[in-house]
């Protein structure tokens, strides 16, 4: 199986991650810097999972120097190899990965041209990350480019220049993964979107039957059905849930960014004419089946994967879950004794499975 695969990976705060990331750009937003940093470390082969396997092109990057040579990464904490000077350290890094590029040019690109003669241990963490970003983006032929918070690397490169480089690699068929806290820095990157929340990597793919996102709000309104009808077409949300028996006056709204969710609610309220009486944040990282209102407790980690035997695919490779969407993992199915139309669960992208989910560029 090609691409980058996570097969039941648990490590630190990461819990049973099953995923496949194909070539192209994938952005991962999350609420935990530790979890995001660890995820990028696993991809780069720097960290080893406690359980499960990470594979890049069928090889474990932690155990395969060949795969690590084709991986360019920006970690949360960077360190140069021991060397008398920064310039020599960068030369060694380039030589280690078989890159004939110029170390001086990389130092200039990262704004550290004047630091060439300093000792590597004299660089501060921000300078080390700036240099590591320049080294990663300059990889001549990466198979994987994994970047943790590249827009906060303290580099001389502008955000636009970083985006441009990221897009260039993605267009060349490289597996590009950009991880950041929140989605604000990632908005202008058209990409497949994943969300790392509560230790679970999932998606902004509600048709999988998952409600995942860093933001979940309970909205009180006397006209919930009208509000839901207006919300289901909003692609900035990852899910909408309404149960007119368990919580007749409430709608649960899920997204990855508070600002985007608030904007979506405003638009929906204006379009539908449904007044919003109150908004309360809720805590609901993952729900596999059952009602998120509490009729059935949400299950974490130990729950069987809704993906079945094969992990979900993100990236340019065709997703295995096209139309029609899977029926089994849909949350909040009608409870026994309840009329089928009394419970409405409408993840936003579910309304049109052919529509790309989560992309926000141009909106």
């Amino acid at each position, binding site marked *: 199986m090609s691409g980058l695969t996570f097969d039941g990976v648990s490590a630190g705060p990461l819990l049973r991650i099953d995923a496949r990331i194909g070539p192209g750009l994938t952005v991962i937003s999350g609420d935990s810097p530790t979890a995001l940093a660890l995820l990028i470390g696993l991809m*780069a*082969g*720097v960290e*080893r999972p406690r359980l499960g396997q990470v594979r890049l092109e069928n090889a474990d990057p*932690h*155990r*395969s*120097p*060949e795969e*690590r*040579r*084709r*991986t360019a*990464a920006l970690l949360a904490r960077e*360190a*140069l*190899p*021991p*060397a*008398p000077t920064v310039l020599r350290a960068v030369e*060694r*890094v380039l030589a*280690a*990965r*078989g890159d004939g590029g110029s170390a001086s040019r990389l130092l200039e690109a990262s704004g550290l041209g004047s630091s060439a003669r300093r000792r590597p241990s004299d660089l501060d963490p921000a300078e080390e990350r700036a240099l590591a970003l320049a080294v990663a983006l300059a990889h001549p032929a990466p198979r994987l480019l994994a970047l943790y918070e590249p827009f906060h690397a303290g580099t001389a490169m502008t955000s636009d220049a970083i985006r441009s480089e990221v897009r260039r690699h993605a267009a060349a068929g490289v597996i590009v993964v950009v991880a950041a806290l929140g989605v604000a820095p990632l908005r202008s990157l058209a990409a497949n979107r994943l969300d790392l929340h509560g230790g679970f990597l999932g998606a902004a793919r509600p048709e999988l039957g998952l409600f995942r996102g860093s933001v979940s709000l309970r909205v009180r309104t006397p006209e919930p059905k009208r509000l839901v009808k207006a919300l289901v077409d909003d692609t900035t949300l990852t899910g909408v849930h309404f149960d007119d028996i368990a919580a007749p006056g409430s709608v649960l709204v899920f997204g990855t960014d508070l600002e985007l969710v608030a904007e979506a609610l405003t638009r929906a309220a204006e379009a539908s004419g449904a007044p919003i009486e109150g908004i309360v944040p809720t805590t609901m990282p993952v729900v596999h089946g059952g009602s998120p209102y509490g009729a059935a407790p949400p299950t974490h980690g130990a729950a069987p994967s809704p993906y079945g035997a094969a992990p979900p695919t993100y990236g340019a490779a065709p997703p295995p879950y096209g139309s029609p969407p899977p029926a089994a993992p849909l949350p909040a199915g009608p409870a026994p004794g309840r009329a089928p139309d009394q419970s409405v669960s409408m993840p936003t992208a579910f309304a049109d499975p052919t529509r790309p989910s989560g992309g926000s560029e141009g909106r």
Partner: protein
Amino acid sequence: MSVVFGALFTSDALRRRTAWVLQVLALAAVAVLGVVERARDAAYAIERTLFGVAFGFLAPLLFLALFEIVHRRERTSAIVAPLARHGQSRRALAAGLLGGLALACAAAGGVLGFVAALSSGSPADAGSFRDLFACTWGGAAIGAAYAGLYAVGSLAGRWGRVAALALDWVLGSGAGYFALPFPRANGRSLLGGEPVIDAPQLVALAILLGLTFAGVLLSAFRAPR
């Protein structure tokens, strides 16, 4: 290639002024105390210098200091990690780094043995040249064996190395079975002191060489590729 990178780490670190200053201070101390021992009583002055200040006290500390200069309190795996992530084998990097340290410790031990024999031996003694030669290569073997011991200790970082030194100090001072895997006991036996479990010097030499290779390889191959 990775082995060369690992050896370069060692070479760069040991070229720092601290490493040279420590070695010069150790040599100066051995030379002065060797002269003092010879002046006090020429008989057995070489033995007292070798087993006392040179390989009994200063050499283990000097070799530990060389390891600390290269490892900077860390495990070997932490030192090689920044280059391993760019496509080099951790095992080969560690083997190069520890192999370089074994060579450095052997060289330092050889010079220490030479200076100890030179300063405490009598120039009029017919066997003085032979003593110089024996102390030099014997010191080199002891230095390399300490490198093997500290390489194993480096799996656990600084405290592992300090624990290895303490065990060598406590258990290696004897001559029984517990002393068998320690450079102090076998080094003493090799240089003509009390043998370990009454084994000949050749066995002591074999154990010292075995410690060197086993320690370096065990430490290197404990790392994933």
